[in-house]
């Protein structure tokens, strides 16, 4: 029951309190519920929990265009009517409304993923979790599908500073189009997305034939699925493809987007996965033993999102969670059964064996093309020498020890870790 991995978990209480507006399916409050449930199961005792820094506009502009970031920062619900052109240009409105504290919300979730990537880079942890992140639709110059800032792209860019190859896996019910598009021309990032495709399902992209272009050809993998896929067929397909991908591509680090809208009974999704099936994918990815960045994503039935991500936090901690949810403030959300497992849906599975077989064959066929034409050195990065960076104007050295100020400022954990044995106690094997 003891995890050997060092787990960093990112949470900021402010992210869960924003409100996209009435009847908007995206409810950040699910983050509060998730965190609450994680704590109810005492999972926090086995990991380190961090409050992410709020990503600076300049950090967001590593991927996004500066004018877009600037506009996001500037706009608020009271002034949005003054900028109809920009609103249309950046695709704000409809799906991506402007709401109070929107930019701060973006900064928090993006900061979480970036911090997570940095901690992995600096080998301060083996697995980093940011359930607030995973907003995979956001494009370079526009918002899309409830996503404003693409934290995944920012996180991957950060990881690319230390790793030659990054593998991105997406099990959200929607196609991870933003991430795929961002890395469509590069072989340094392989994107693998399992999603529902067809019948005008959002975002409309993600055919198996979209495989990347130029250097990135064959480095984008899409597994289009149909309604109602169940645990058995999904996990089997997932394992076959992912193990082949890892074997072929030899990534230095894996980013896993765990959108919970692929669960049965989601308000927007149409798959039939149980929480166990979903978590099985996480378990499988964890087993590769590579540095792992886990993010959230979609998920529009709040209770199930909280359940799913709690179970998956447990999986990453190698902890099996009992089915009965301990009493907590939000227990009523989980009533009347108050259990972790959810009943599977009754959607008919339209994925025939032959269909899945065809998809699998095609994907494996494309993977073979990589083996014969490796354009990236298939060697892992030389060991990373981490030099703590002292930033004089940031803090007075004496204050670093003062724990109370640590929250007010972003702390240099490196120092703390180097000087103290603090982090050992947490993942000891004793």
């Amino acid at each position, binding site marked *: 029951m003891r995890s050997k991995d060092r787990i960093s978990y990112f949470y900021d209480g402010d992210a869960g309190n924003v409100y996209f507006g009435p009847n908007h399916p995206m409810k950040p409050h699910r983050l509060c519920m998730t965190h609450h449930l994680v704590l109810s199961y005492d999972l926090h005792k086995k990991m380190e929990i961090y409050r992410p820094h709020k990503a600076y506009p300049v950090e967001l502009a590593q991927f996004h265009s500066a004018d877009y970031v600037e506009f996001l920062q500037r706009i608020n619900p009271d002034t949005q009517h003054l900028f109809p052109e920009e609103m249309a240009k950046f695709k704000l409105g409809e799906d991506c409304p402007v709401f109070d504290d929107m930019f701060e919300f973006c900064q928090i979730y993006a900061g979480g993923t970036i911090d997570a990537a940095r901690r992995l880079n600096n080998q301060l942890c083996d697995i980093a979790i940011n359930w607030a992140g995973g907003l995979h639709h956001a494009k370079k110059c526009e918002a899309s599908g409830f996503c404003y800032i693409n934290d995944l792209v920012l996180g991957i860019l950060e990881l690319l500073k230390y790793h030659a190859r990054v593998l991105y896996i997406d099990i959200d019910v929607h196609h991870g189009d933003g991430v795929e598009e961002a890395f469509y021309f*590069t072989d340094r990032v392989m994107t693998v997305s399992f999603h529902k495709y067809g019948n*005008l399902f*959002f975002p409309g992209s993600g055919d198996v034939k979209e495989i990347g272009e130029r250097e990135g050809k064959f480095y984008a993998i899409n597994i289009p699925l149909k309604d109602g896929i169940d645990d058995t067929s999904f996990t089997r397909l997932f394992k076959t493809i992912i193990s082949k991908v890892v074997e072929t591509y030899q990534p230095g680090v894996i980013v896993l987007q765990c959108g919970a809208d692929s669960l049965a009974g989601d308000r927007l999704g149409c798959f039939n996965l149980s929480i166990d099936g979903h978590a099985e994918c996480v378990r499988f990815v964890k087993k590769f033993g590579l540095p792992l960045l886990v993010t959230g994503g979609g998920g529009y039935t709040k209770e199930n999102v909280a359940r799913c991500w709690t179970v998956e936090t447990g999986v990453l901690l190698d902890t099996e969670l009992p089915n009965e949810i301990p009493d907590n403030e*939000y227990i009523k959300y989980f009533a009347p059964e108050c259990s972790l497992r959810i009943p599977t849906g009754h959607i008919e599975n339209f994925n025939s064996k032959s269909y899945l077989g065809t998809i699998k064959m095609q994907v494996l066929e494309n993977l073979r093309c990589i083996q014969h034409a490796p354009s990236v050195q298939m060697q892992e990065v030389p060991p990373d020498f981490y030099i703590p960076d002292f930033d004089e104007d940031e803090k007075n050295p004496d204050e670093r020890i003062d724990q109370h100020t640590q929250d007010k400022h972003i702390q240099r954990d490196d120092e703390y870790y180097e000087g103290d044995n603090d982090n050992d106690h947490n993942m000891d094997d004793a």
Partner: protein
Amino acid sequence: MACDSKLRNGSDLNEFKIPEVCKSNSGLFVNHELYVNYGGLDGCADVDELRVLFDQVLSFFLKEVCVSKKVFRPFPPKLGDGQEADLFKLFLTVRRIGSYELVSENNLWEFVARECGIEIGLVASLKLIYIKYLKELDQWLLNGGFRDGKMENIEISVVEKLDLLSRQLGRSLVDVEIIGFEDCKGKTEGTSGFNQVQGGMNLDFSRINCDDEEKFGAGGHKRCELSPKSIKKVGFSMVNDEVKRKEILPDNVVMKVRLSMNHGDDNVLKSVDLPVIDYLDDDDDDNDDVMITAKDDDLDNVVSRSVNIQKRKREEESLQLSEMLDWLANAARDPHNNAFETSQRSNKGKNFTNDHLHKQVLSARCALFAELNVDLGNEACGSQKKTQRMHPSMYENDRVQLRCSRRTTAAIPCPLKRQQTESSNIRTDRIREITEPHDQKCNLGPHHQAEVPQWTGVVSDSDPKWLGSQMWPQPNGPYRENEEGEMVIGQGRQGICECVFPGSAECVRFHIAENRLKVKIELGPLFYKWKFNQMGEEISLSWEPEEEKRFKSIVIKARYDLEHSTKSRREIMNKFWTKASDLIPDKLKKNVVSYYFNVFVLRRRSYQNRVTPKEIDSDNDEEEVGSVGDRFGYEKIHGLSLKCSENLQRTDLEP
């Protein structure tokens, strides 16, 4: 259709077996693909004539019908690039495939564009033009709209022209639908005999020629370009329902009858194969053969559609489905048959029986097409599940999309993620897609991709300054020793408690409070940093009962407005928030939102848990019923006596 139809090789479809069951049965259940190959126009003269007629009718239609509906359609319509669209060709092509719905569902617009000699990039505007100009015309012709009372003042000549057109179209296109349907309408309740039947029947039309499949795929286009001869690809199924119109009963039916051909029989193979080849080779071949080819192949995809045919008059009962099927088989077997020809020529019905049967077939088809998309995905067709049902998208993928390039499939993006929740919007969204064509191409370029530096093998600096601030374990927290010892995590709910009434509201409340306290002690200052103090119903304690009441009232008001008012959602919600800040001046918007999720929704849930456990939905903001209860445990805190208020709430919340 094919007045002088003859099947040159006289394909022998003797292998068609109609089992006995079929004869005693009724209801038609055709499941599988039915390929109908129709003869086209005899020569160019005909096409020209038809085009002239079509132009006349169209201009008449646009003038009369559209003007009466007060819509203005500029003429001639232009495509996105300024090129004029050939409406006639477009109309003809779509007719060939079947109907607008069929084209859309099977993603055949690209094909249509190619047929019309239009660039793929203009598919969207082509589709738009069809919708704007021709869809109604098509419907109008199909429904016999011109026979309407309204149109009586129209000059006879025009009607005649229309008739002529429709007949010619029908002949050239295969589709005698028009005539058939009119006839069907003419009789009060419809004439199809096969729908008196109790059960359903499943016919598998087996297509023998497997090669043909590929021809349809690859050679199909070419053939269509060469001659107006057309191919019709349809898969359908039909369910008959005695009880209600337009409703499909799951328990309806189903006897499966296979009209299958013997695959082992070489003769048959040949005989059916030949006409197709002749067709291709002989350009002067003027036979308008009716050839029904179907394929029995498990891999073959099937689009099943169920259609419920109206209930017909009792007097028609004598006409059995089997009779019709016999006729159909005969017609297929021997298209030279006079009876068959007569039936096609005469609308007046000299040869009543044959004519009648003929119409039955046509009206059946007509009905099938008319309702093709109505019951798409209708789960009520339980009977379908027993057959080889395939999801429409399956069909689309395996059959059609293989032919389409990646670009086209990617060119139909779905603009709204949340549209799945608002099904009523889908139609409009689709139209918007058409008007705003996307191309994957525009997603490539410096405005879309991230800048990824080449891997040099040298680790570049990752800014280590911002790694997040550690919250837990609390660096100098008091509970560090715990981690050294044996630590059990991930425990579930404790099974046994010592409360007087385990499971009661008091008990649950007690345990929640107990756990909260435990967490609070453990987390110390973190409790506040993680905003645990702002979680749970606890926060309602900082709200005055008066404030809660006001909040409740404006929620009810907003909900009512959303349902009944014509104002936009944004307007209503803006009003809601202004009102909220007016009525509850002490609370920031943040607090109100937090109250909403932590108290309001929670109470709704607790109400739902108790009253409607089957319809729990905490994610729907609009359909809140009975959500506004008393504070949970309010009585406990304030020492009020218990009162049962739920029912009251329910009634006063009902809009």
